[in-house]
């Protein structure tokens, strides 16, 4: 049943031109949609309400999308509960509710393979020392539930020869751990953390001599960060500024600072920045940009909501998700970095505020 999907995720993620990718991707996504349609009655009803049947896929834009926050409100499962091996919770943002994602073995395996393939393309095959800018407790699960931070970190550890979490429980540099670590760095290093945590560390440790001394012994480390820009945008910090501060602080080049765009609702697929600063779409997913008002698919070069489509989720129908992030497709196959496929950038939200006034009843 899922032969095509399993074949797809083994392909070099940025090797196919559209003619090669499209037919295979459509086959896989059709296979996936049929599976969810048949195994998740709620999803089937949703498709019916959208006048969509899996046998009638015209193109990717005809596949119904779910707003990404639907998993904060509704539990959707396409496999029996007994097959669930892990429950992920996203960070609760403005709504204070986390997305809850149920993973079966098949989904988890696919996620691992795809993530492995994407990250190796950017970091190389050699395993590295990982310095995790987080506390080790973040990696622990409670009753099978794992936080989004924990699952993102755990996902990255497959690339680690060794790893060390260097923050204490208050997310401050733990100097004891740092001094132990100092004598044990003997190969390529990757520093990994959530974007806002890294920013916090940068801000708090400008004059931390112990940390500076430690970092001066590292050179040309890769800095991978994930988790989004919302908190930093609130502080009016843009990517260029962040990359520059980050590379200075961690003693590396700006093109070694890599932002990974991804979401708990479609874990296993991340969209890293290449050395030109563009995000690349691997063969096992595709993105569309939709107009924020008409919801029609935008042309390349136009801004809108980013829709992510991937056949990887098996235990839940998170195959076509509309995110609230704004992006713009810059091109396909012709990024100077040499990677094939779609590449895009994030766009800042407009500063338009919705009107508030006498109708503004928050709590009735």
């Amino acid at each position, binding site marked *: 049943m899922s032969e095509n999907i399993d074949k797809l995720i083994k392909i070099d993620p940025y090797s196919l031109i559209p003619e090669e990718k499209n037919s295979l991707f459509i086959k896989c996504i059709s296979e996936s949609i049929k599976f969810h349609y048949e195994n998740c009655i*709620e999803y089937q*009803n*949703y498709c019916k*309400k*959208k006048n969509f049947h899996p046998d009638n896929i015209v193109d990717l834009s005809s596949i119904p999308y*779910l*707003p990404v*926050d*639907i998993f904060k*409100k*509704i539990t959707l499962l396409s496999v029996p509960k007994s097959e669930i091996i892990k429950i992920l919770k996203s960070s609760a943002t403005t709504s204070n509710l986390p997305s809850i994602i149920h993973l079966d073995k098949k989904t988890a395996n696919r996620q691992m393979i795809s993530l492995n393939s994407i990250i190796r393309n950017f970091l190389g095959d050699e395993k590295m020392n990982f310095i995790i800018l987080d506390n080790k407790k973040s990696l622990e699960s409670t009753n099978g539930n794992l936080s989004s931070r924990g699952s993102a970190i755990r996902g990255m550890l497959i690339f680690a020869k060794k790893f060390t979490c260097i923050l204490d429980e208050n997310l401050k540099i733990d100097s004891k751990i740092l001094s132990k670590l100092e004598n044990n760095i003997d190969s390529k290093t990757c520093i990994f953390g959530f974007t806002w945590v890294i920013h916090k560390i940068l801000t708090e440790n400008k004059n931390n001599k112990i940390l500076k001394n430690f970092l001066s012994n590292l050179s040309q480390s890769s800095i991978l960060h994930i988790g989004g820009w919302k908190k930093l945008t609130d502080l009016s910090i843009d990517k260029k500024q962040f990359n520059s501060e980050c590379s200075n602080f961690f003693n590396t080049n700006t093109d070694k600072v890599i932002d990974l765009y991804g979401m708990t609702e479609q874990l296993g697929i991340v969209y890293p920045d290449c050395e030109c600063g563009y995000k690349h779409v691997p063969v096992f997913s595709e993105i569309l940009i939709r107009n*924020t*008002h*008409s*919801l*029609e698919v935008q042309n390349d070069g136009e801004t809108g*909501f980013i829709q992510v489509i991937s056949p990887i989720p098996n235990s839940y129908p998170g195959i076509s998700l*509309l995110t*609230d992030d*704004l992006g713009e497709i810059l091109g396909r196959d012709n990024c100077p970095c040499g990677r094939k496929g779609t590449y895009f950038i994030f766009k800042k*939200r*407009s500063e*338009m*505020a*919705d*009107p*508030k*006034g*006498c*109708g*503004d*009843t*928050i709590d*009735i």
Partner: protein
Amino acid sequence: MGILLTFKHIFSDGISHENPEDDLESLIVNLKSKKEWLHSQKIDDLIEFFDSLGDSWKNSNEYFGNNLKHISEFLSRDNLEKELKISLRGNFSVLDEFIPLFDIADSLYHAQPRGISVHWIAGNVDILGIFSVVQALLTKNLCLIKAPHDYSLLKKLLLSFKDVSTEKISGQDLLNCITLVYVERDDLINQEILSKNADIRIAWGGDEAVSTILSLKKNFFTEDIIYGPKYSYAILDSEFLENNLKNAAQRLAFDVSIFDQNACNSPHTIFVENNDSDNPNLVKDFAKELSSSMETVNRLMLPKSEISEKKSMDILSLRAEYDFKGEVFAPKNTDWTVIYSEDEGLANPCFSRVVFIKPIKNAEDIGKFHNRKIQSIGLGISNLEKRKKLIDLVTMLGGDRCPSIGSMSKFQSPWDGIFGMDRMVRWISMSNQ
């Protein structure tokens, strides 16, 4: 006083300034100098002026906003006389002189203006300022207006006073009694100057805005008129709907659309009383009919205003949720949304033309969801006795007004339980013996 970039003098004496460097206290001194002129105007002449102003806006080729029809109706002589009469003990000549009221022979009464009315106008509905400013001027109070962030339409409407002159009043003279300024919420120095100089503080706004205004220092005798955050809904019964399905849908589509639901009188939920003996399809049939009317109103009468990306996503998210939990009627874009839901109670407002239709077994059950935040309850109930009983119940529990559907958005007295113009005057009596 230091110069603050958070302040802007928009206009006074009918002259546009747009100047951040002017001094607010000097503007207030200038405004106060118009007190005697305004006091000397006759109420009948003021009514005549506003009636002509409404006509002038109605007949103008210029764009005065989607809600122009509303304001023109409000400014009509008939309406203003009714509003004044109901607010001022039945005789609005009391604004001009000492007169007897009712059949009380031994005393004469006169309603004096309080002085300077300061209006904090919210950004949600561009015409709110006009309603409170006209009421203040009719009661002969000077107007100092704190404009919302986007004040272009309010400024345009007010400055167009200049284009109207009646036999007794020139628009320019009346405009001299209005000063329009912009003060940011965080500019507490200027906010406090506004508040301390107010004889009447009129605050339109949400929780945060109104709380900020109420926390400002004021004079001991200042009157507060608070038009704070409110929620509105409608309720219809089967009997009414069976005879008026299309008409009810058209009227409610108008009520939902007119201010894009940003106003306190915009309905967010429509309950349909439908018990077991009624037509089981009626509620969904009504939802379909309403969706058709929402489309018509948007296309032909009241095009939807632009919304933020965040609001657009809120709408899509809610639609998806109720695609699973209920039924959603909506176009491909985000212009309007009708959601059929059997969830109990009042729906949380999403705004932006998103309305819930909910069946309810017994209209009176709605009382259990009532509190003082409920403002307008649009009614579509045929039987007069049933209607009266329901109104008595829901207003006892907190609702402020129960207009017929289609008229929910009309500004009228009382508003939020207040006869606004009554609160804008000081009542004086003298012996008639």
